[in-house]
């Protein structure tokens, strides 16, 4: 059987061995090749591919009409759905095989606001013509202007807030990005993002209890996931968000979190501080002491985001009460200022 190599702009290529007599699109899709398609009848041009020269491994299937012009065929364009394989060769597609793969985008700073004693919320808007798709829970690298360094930050907004994105950023004395954000950056300045990265994401379950455990700015990707759940159609799962910070002043955007709680009837919020004067709805302790683990069921899906110590302690507690390790998702946050 002749072998056809399918090439995508991200460098990925797939080999398909196929016989004539069948639509190449059908064979390729069966082999898992991500060729875009819609009508499958030679009309809509979604499955368009190109040869390096005027001809290639595919030939039009007899009796199948196509919307290509004669000049398209001379230039080596083919519609996979109405073509069949007649020889070995290569075919190229003008898009990446994995559309969620990392890319670079410019953005403008909209605002930088203090949301805690040691954290800001950086809000940006993608530049005209630039785009960056992501799943809630993922992160991007932001290049520190006038340096060769990058820092990683998780979005606290959801994909449907695009072209706007926001990040909760911890401000560290002497940190490269911290210095930039607090002394130099101003609205309308341009930043360069690269991403998305990371596999921290919502499981998609709308029935299993969802337990979110955040330490400090580990709250950022969890906020993104909460926004996604708020936007999803249908019944919402029961959710608990436990945020722990060093002091009550260091709690991130508590007023906003309380608003989220009032807009999401199935969300309950726990705020804890380890030191300082604790009062009102803020509890003494950390993100774990605020959780009644005896009430955590094995069906629970847990999301832990913060420093390594928190992840280890949370995982230990969760496993103890019967939550399988496969139901525990975590994202490690390290102070990048140190590296």
């Amino acid at each position, binding site marked *: 059987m002749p072998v056809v190599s399918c090439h995508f702009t991200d460098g990925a290529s797939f080999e398909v061995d196929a016989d004539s007599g069948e639509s190449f699109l059908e064979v390729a899709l069966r082999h898992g090749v991500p060729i875009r398609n819609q*009508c*499958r*009848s030679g009309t809509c041009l979604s499955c368009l591919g190109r040869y390096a020269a005027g001809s290639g491994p595919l030939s039009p299937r007899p009796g199948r009409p196509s919307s290509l012009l004669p000049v398209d065929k001379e230039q080596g364009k083919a519609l996979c759905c109405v073509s069949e394989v007649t020889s070995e060769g290569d075919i190229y597609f003008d898009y990446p095989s994995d559309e969620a793969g990392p890319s670079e985008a*410019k953005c*403008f700073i*909209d*605002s930088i606001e203090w949301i805690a004693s040691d954290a800001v919320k950086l809000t940006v*808007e*993608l*530049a*005209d*013509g*630039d785009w960056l798709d992501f799943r809630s829970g993922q992160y991007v690298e932001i290049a520190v202007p006038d340096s060769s360094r990058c820092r990683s930050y998780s979005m606290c907004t959801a994909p449907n807030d695009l*072209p*706007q994105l926001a990040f909760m950023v911890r401000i560290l004395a002497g940190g490269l990005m911290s210095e930039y954000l607090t002394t130099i950056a101003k609205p*309308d300045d*341009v930043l360069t993002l690269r991403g998305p990265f990371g596999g921290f994401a919502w499981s998609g379950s*709308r029935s299993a209890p969802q337990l979110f455990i955040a330490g400090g700015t580990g709250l950022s990707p969890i906020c993104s996931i909460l926004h996604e759940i708020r*936007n999803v*159609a*249908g*019944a919402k799962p029961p959710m608990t968000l436990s945020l722990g910070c060093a002091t009550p002043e260091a709690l991130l955007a508590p007023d*906003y979190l309380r*608003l989220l709680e*009032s*807009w*999401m*009837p199935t969300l309950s919020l726990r705020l804890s501080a380890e030191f300082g004067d604790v009062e009102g709805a803020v509890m003494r302790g950390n993100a774990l002491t605020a959780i009644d683990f005896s009430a955590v069921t094995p069906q629970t899906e847990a999301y832990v985001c913060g420093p390594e110590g928190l992840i280890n302690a949370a995982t230990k507690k969760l496993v103890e009460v019967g939550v399988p390790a496969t139901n525990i998702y975590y994202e490690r946050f390290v102070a990048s200022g140190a590296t």
Partner: protein
Amino acid sequence: MSDKQPVRRRSQAKRANSEAVQNEYQPYVDAEWGFVNHWYPALFSNELGEGDVEGIQIAGIQIVLRRANGKVYALKDQCIHRGVRLSAKPMCFNKETISCWYHGFTFNLESGNLDTIVGNPDDPLIGNTNLTTYPVEEVAGLIFVFVRSDDYPDEDVPPLSEDLPLRFPENSDRFPHPLWPASPSLLDESVVALGIHRTGEANWRIACENGFDNAHILVHKDNTIVQANNWVLPLGIRPASEDCITVFDDAGGPKGMMQWLFTDRWEPILENKTLDVKVEGLNSRLYRTSVIMPGVLLVENWPEEGIAQYEWYVPITDDTYEYWEVLVKHCPTSESEEQFTYRFDTVFQPLALRGFNDCDLHAREAMQDFYADGTGWQKEQLVETDISAIMWRKLASRHNRGIAPPPPGAQGRDKASSIRLRNVSEGKSPGYYVEKIDDLNNFNRTSVRQKGR
């Protein structure tokens, strides 16, 4: 490609919007086009006879309704092929399907699946795509549709009762009504519902907040029904207690709030000495209002004992709503139904639903421009009687099942489309129903220029 493209900002308008202050009830402020994933009245049953097809729009979603073998079906009224409204020129070859009159795409009424294409029965798209369907309930002569986003799962569709007012006497202990009998519910046996619906030109929220605004009754001061009956309709009713409003949000039940009017929790104002204005009426006309998601008003004991007035302010676009006024009464015998119908035709419709409530339509329009560009929500200066509106906004922010996005490709998104302007120039306001093609061989709307002398 050595040329470096300049980095440019997107449009300023977008940014201004995103910088809007987040307030306590931001989701409500965002719901310009209404809330989705809720039950709304679509038509009166007698507006859709056997075999009939009608097209409407709710929360920016175009919906086609068809009655086949007595059952009402609702599908998205936007063909998956090229977006044509199926209802503009109904074409049905059998009782199981509806076809698009343009290219013959034929959809199953029950499942929404593309069953065939009239002139292209072997196309690979057949069986592989579908139109969104909307669950339908028909009660007491009203057709209700669950208006949902395309991805809302079937299994999460709540019962209609979750989006209708509280029922009595089940709730009489919780919300006692010593001065009038238990209010009838649309879901009760032997209930008769009579009403009207029409299009109002305002945002649905402006309309909805009018319905239970205890200071707005001033607009009704001079209404015929009030003066003819010598009713005591206060100049206003001010909150006099911290528990003047009770929120109800039981799981599986309606989400709303009850106003304890004509109890000591509210003070009716009958005189303003500064202005030397006095209510002169002699006969009391006691009532009480509650509002329920997604914007349903229940006025108990109105416009007379034994009757309840229901209202809906169903969003059509961001600046039009379908105003439903329905009177509900228990009529266990055909004689009592006849009496109610006669009184509806001769008194309630002309004097209450029209005369009295026409004032509300004027009032909502008068408020529309202030809120239309979004700034009114920040600029409004509120007083104590606005407690009702603010509690409702917070409640709606919490209990809505989804915010309708500005609809892609639907009527009314583009305020100045050529078709819209032509309709207006012909005297047809933007409205609720589809514009049907009724005279097939005569497209007589445009002037025709003929050749020759």
